[in-house]
């Protein structure tokens, strides 16, 4: 490691709102948001798949936007509001998309599921996807190696239909 790299080992104080709870933390500049969540805060619902922004398993919602937490530095989240899979249920009631994933059997091994659900929740809020083809395109950042894609699209479609954002298409 070059000599110039041995600097900045000091931690930096940040404040974030995580699943509705205000937290004051000291973080190392080189800690990713994903590692902060999983390692330091033991919120292991958010998954580490590729750790390079290619699989989407680490997707969380930051200030309303779905983001790959593996490519975000924790130190840069100061002042932000972050929602993870652990924060979607309200008062013990699952988010409608969580319920739809269960009803539609939209997972097999489950490893990608927290990222799929966080991504899908944001997709629904964004409002850009109003057909099945658009749901597929807008979920392209979440890989499922079990291949549960048709059921994932079904689950998202169900919630869009419930909310009046999509009219169910004839069987493809």
């Amino acid at each position: 490691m070059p000599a110039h790299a041995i600097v900045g080992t000091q931690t930096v104080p940040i404040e974030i709102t995580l699943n509705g709870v205000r937290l004051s933390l000291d973080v190392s500049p080189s800690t990713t948001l994903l590692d902060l969540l999983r390692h330091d805060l033991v919120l292991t619902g958010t998954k580490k798949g590729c750790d390079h922004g290619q699989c989407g398993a680490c997707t969380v919602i930051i200030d309303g936007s779905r983001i790959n937490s593996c490519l975000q530095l924790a130190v840069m989240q100061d002042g932000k509001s972050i929602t993870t899979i652990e924060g979607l249920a309200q008062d013990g009631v699952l988010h409608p998309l969580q319920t739809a994933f269960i009803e539609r059997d939209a997972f097999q091994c489950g490893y990608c599921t927290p990222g799929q659900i966080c991504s899908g929740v944001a997709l629904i809020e964004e409002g850009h996807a109003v057909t099945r083809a658009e749901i597929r395109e807008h979920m392209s950042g979440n890989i499922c190696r079990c291949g549960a894609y048709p059921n994932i699209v079904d689950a998202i479609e169900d919630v869009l239909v419930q909310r009046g954002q999509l009219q169910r298409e004839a069987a493809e």
Partner: protein
Amino acid sequence: MNRFSYHRAGTVAEAVKALSDEPAARLIAGGTNLVDLMKYNVETPSTLIDVTRVEALKGITETEDGGLRIGALVANNTVAYDERVNARFPLLASAILAGATPQLRNAATTGGNLNQRTRCYYFYDIQTPCNKREPGSGCGAIGGLNRIHAILGASEQCIATHPSDMCVGLAALGAEVHIAGPTGERVIAFADYHRLPGDSPQHDNTLRHGEIVVAVVLPQGSQGYAGHYSYLKLRDRLSYAFALVSVAAALEIEGGVIASARIALGGVAHKPWRRQDAEDSLVGRPADDRAFAEAAGLLVSGALGHQHNAFKIDLACRAIVRALAQAAAGTPQSQTDKRIA
């Protein structure tokens, strides 16, 4: 990832000074490319200068002469879904939505998109030679695996491509890049921002030490292309893959005759590829396949294939003709339904 210092800049001047003072410092905003490169030890910055709090780099605003100014910090998705961009520069919105994923486009910024590095496998693998990563070490792609590499404007030192879709749209629209640096501000044409590799492939662009991109400006004059445009991207899978070849095509048609044309190629060179003679060849001609094929021939003239990418030359010609036909018909390529009409 190496250890580094963290510096949160509050103003453009502060960011410029911090960058000027430390040769191994890097700016960070969206982080989608830089953090990835740091995980591979391709980038080992001494300091990261966080510019995400700099107000002067935010927002999309009207310019005095009727153009749109996109701040360097504006996220790719924010640009792609902006009503003004969609009404006046829909080619740019389409190009952006052809790239990456919603998650990446939410984080990735306009300035960062310009300054992202190549996705050449050898650039990313520090065990292999790469003149871009380590000048003088050689090129792993020449004689290696080079399916994704350049066919135009490459050198014996480097055949890497610039990976952006957004930049191909910006090149076609003749955008301006607004820059701040230690000696003040300057504006350069988009075509002069990125460079060809030549003997110094370590330099992707013409930024000088200490300079930062503050905004990209879309000129009022390019709004005339809003009716006839298409961004056609061809890749190894239908979504979330870099272009093998992409084409940003834009036409102004008056009375069935082409009044002006812009064509930029992505995935084929170290920068978005344009040629004035190819665009000029279309002016005054009817918008038909014969004219488009001649323009395509001019645009790829001098192309040189390597072992795995020679197919791109013919592919590019066909894609140019198809994209121009889509533009002429007013039926731009959908970025959701990937069937090519």
